[in-house]
């Protein structure tokens, strides 16, 4: 196997037939083999962990959510059509719908990554392996494929490459792709029915659905009913799926965001392996709970009275907490900064959800908003460290004076 690679390698090297494809070749080579490169200076031994493995573990943590998302797509479809079919049919229906999203997201994003790696002549970074999986999980299954491609390319170029590539970006690329869609094609990303006559959140033509099926997400229900102003909190809760359903995830929503249970499982994997930041996850939840309780306390309208735990299982809160807020590059990079960053994400999410009727979901905007603020938070944490050092210097100066 490796001999084969050695044989074709000269074609890709300088003077070969495809020198421009060298970075592409290298990416595949390093995917198949860990190279025999050895240390020359500094530490002679290195931790076995590398970027590929880090990203791979996020993918592992995403797998249960992805599989559940596929099944749920099928489930919601047949519910809308009022048909009862076997579990495997539900899953296959979802598989056929979700897989193209994944393929398109990966293909369009990786092409951009490979082109930039070639232009800049650096190794292909592994970061997109995760972004490429996240994008299909945070959009409605009904999103047209060309939109997915456009959004992904936009996110990779504007969100990442213009800043210098993986590790340099300010915003979370996957969320940037989603927000691009959200603002460029709002009709496909929110509401109940998209311009193609389909439900937004469920793969089913709206005019063929059974009457009892509304297709609205719980958050949309809460937002609409509370702005109408008539409904009491118990009425809102009645028109929503039950808390158990929301926790398990058998509700309409973006492909991967619905099952809080499996997202928790993914979160456990990330925390147990040490890949995801437990500080951020916990502080996002703390921020959400804090703001939720504050709303309960003042409870001016029915939405504010909603039990606080509802917010944790509705919409993208759990998914954003576990997979999005923890992106190490766009999050705060300092220890204490992570607490502040996470807490504020929780607070801002609920603020947008409850106080701003224009956007039913606040998680995406809250994370992007805090992405922008993360460097500022870090700046103050670093300043505090510097001040401690200056103080020490002054203390010594006074003593000797």
């Amino acid at each position, binding site marked *: 196997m490796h001999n084969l690679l050695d044989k074709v390698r000269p074609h890709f090297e300088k003077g070969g037939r495809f020198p421009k494809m060298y970075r592409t070749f290298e990416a595949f080579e390093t995917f198949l083999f*860990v*190279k025999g*490169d050895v240390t020359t*200076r500094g530490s*002679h*031994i290195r931790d076995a*962990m590398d970027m590929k493995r880090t990203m791979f573990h996020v993918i592992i943590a995403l797998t249960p959510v992805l599989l559940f998302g596929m099944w749920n797509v099928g489930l919601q479809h047949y519910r809308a059509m009022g048909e009862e079919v076997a579990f495997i049919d539900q899953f296959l229906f979802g598989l056929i719908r979700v897989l193209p999203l994944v393929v398109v997201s990966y293909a369009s994003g990786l092409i951009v990554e490979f082109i930039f790696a070639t232009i800049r002549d650096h*190794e292909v970074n592994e970061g997109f392996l995760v972004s490429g999986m996240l994008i299909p999980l945070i959009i409605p299954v009904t999103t047209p494929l060309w939109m997915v491609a456009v959004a992904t390319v936009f996110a990779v170029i504007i969100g990442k490459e213009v800043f210098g590539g993986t590790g340099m970006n300010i915003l979370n690329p996957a969320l940037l792709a989603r927000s691009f869609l959200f603002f460029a094609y709002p009709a496909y990303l929110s509401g109940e029915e998209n311009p193609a006559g389909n439900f937004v959140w469920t793969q089913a033509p709206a005019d063929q659905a059974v009457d009892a099926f509304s297709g609205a997400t719980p958050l949309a229900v809460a937002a609409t009913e509370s702005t109408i102003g008539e409904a009491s909190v118990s009425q809102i809760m009645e028109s929503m799926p039950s808390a158990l359903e929301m926790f398990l995830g058998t509700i309409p929503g973006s492909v991967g965001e619905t099952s809080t249970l499996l997202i928790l499982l993914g979160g456990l994997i990330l925390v147990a392996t040490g*890949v995801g930041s437990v500080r951020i996850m916990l502080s996002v939840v703390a921020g959400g709970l804090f703001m939720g309780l504050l709303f309960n306390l003042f409870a001016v309208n029915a939405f504010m009275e909603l039990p606080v735990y509802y917010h944790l299982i509705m919409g993208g809160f759990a998914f954003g907490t576990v997979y999005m807020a923890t992106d190490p590059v766009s999050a705060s990079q300092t220890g204490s900064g992570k607490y502040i960053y996470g807490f504020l994400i929780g607070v801002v999410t609920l603020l947008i959800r409850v106080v701003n009727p224009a956007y039913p979901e606040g998680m995406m905007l809250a994370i992007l908003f805090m992405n922008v603020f993360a460097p500022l938070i870090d700046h103050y944490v670093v300043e505090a460290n510097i001040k401690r050092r200056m103080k020490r210097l002054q203390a010594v100066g006074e003593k000797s004076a």
Partner: protein
Amino acid sequence: MSEIIHIKRGLDIPLRGDADKILQTQPRSANYAIRPTDFHGLFPKMLVEEGDKVKAGTPLFFDKNNEEVVFTSPVSGTYKELIRGAKRRILEVRIEADPEDEYVNFGTADPAALSRDEIKEKLLKSGLWPAIRQRPYSVIASHHDTPRDIFISAFKTTPLAPDMDFVVNGQEDTFQTGLNILNKLTDGDVHLSVHGKNTMSKAFTEAKNMALHRFTGPHPAGNVGTQIHHVKPINKGDIVWYLNVQDVIIIGRLFEKGIYDASKVIVLNGSEVIKPRYYRAINGVNISALTDNNIRKEEGTTPRFISGDVLSGEKVAPDGFLGFYDDQVTVIPEGDEPELLGWLIPKLEKFSVSRTFFSFLMPWKKFRLNTNIRSGERPFVVTGIYEKVFPMDIMPMQLIKSIMINDIDMMEKLGIYEVAPEDFALPEFVCPSKIEMQTIVREGLDSIKKEFE
């Protein structure tokens, strides 16, 4: 007396091949060498010509930028050749050893009766001055300075480090003489740091003329940089000196016997060594005298010889020489074989601080780690792991980034004066982006030194 300082953040890398506590006298090697590259920033100017006879203590070369600092031969013999590297840089000054050593006589002296300048002069003339290094910058101390304090670490926590209790055994008095001398070089204290539980030797715990500190915890608790940070951190403008325990002993010998006797106890270990042992050897020894017929031969693996420890040591040839500051030769396997899906398959012989390999399930296991980098270099992505192995109130990633963009002002603010490359060995080890932090820190120290010269 002093309370114990617990170091919490750090990492002990469990390597296979620890040495038995057996001390052998190593047969004299045919040649010895001084490596000017051991002394960062040194511009050597030769004082001898090829074929000259030298004694132990005869000056071989001096520092062009600092002419009083001379480097002397560790053995008596014939100055044979100069090994040069790229740009004609001098790598090794080789001496063909006589069967027996003759010493240059520097005269015995009672340190108590000598002035600070007389001590300095003696150390400079005998070639022992380079044993004293300073922070900031981690280079040979300037003899024009008077340091705020002097620090000595009497225990090591680097992987497979020699046991200093075992090393000092039988040389307790000489060590004390060395301490007495150092005490005259500073207006502050000579700080001696010992392990809170493991250090038993009274040479350390009951030494005089010093301030004792007790540390516990994982590596880098034994690094002098960690100790300085927790005992009395370096502020801008401060200069502290630091030495190895065995160099203190060699300094003691100079005053007791009047000679430069560069013999010390070194340890040969690592997973590829058949009989890992302690040896009594002379500085600059050719390591092949230790390793011949003592290295495992295995199909498909070549050994890597390291003068020093696996984290900050120097790669040397199989017939290379022991570095000036080193008391350890480690031999581990090279990792030059490509591995199919190596990033994916968790093998038992892989060690990681992250819990993505099985190594965290087997805390008792000792590993045979090789030199494979495991990935190409990437930008910083993962955060928060460097801090876990860096027990100083310094932000490692932010400091490294400030060095990368050569922001002198920021480096200073973030505490570069306190650190040396070796302090970043563990962050470098754990870095999943495989960033060469020790090299970067050295570059940062260089540019900041240049700025103030």
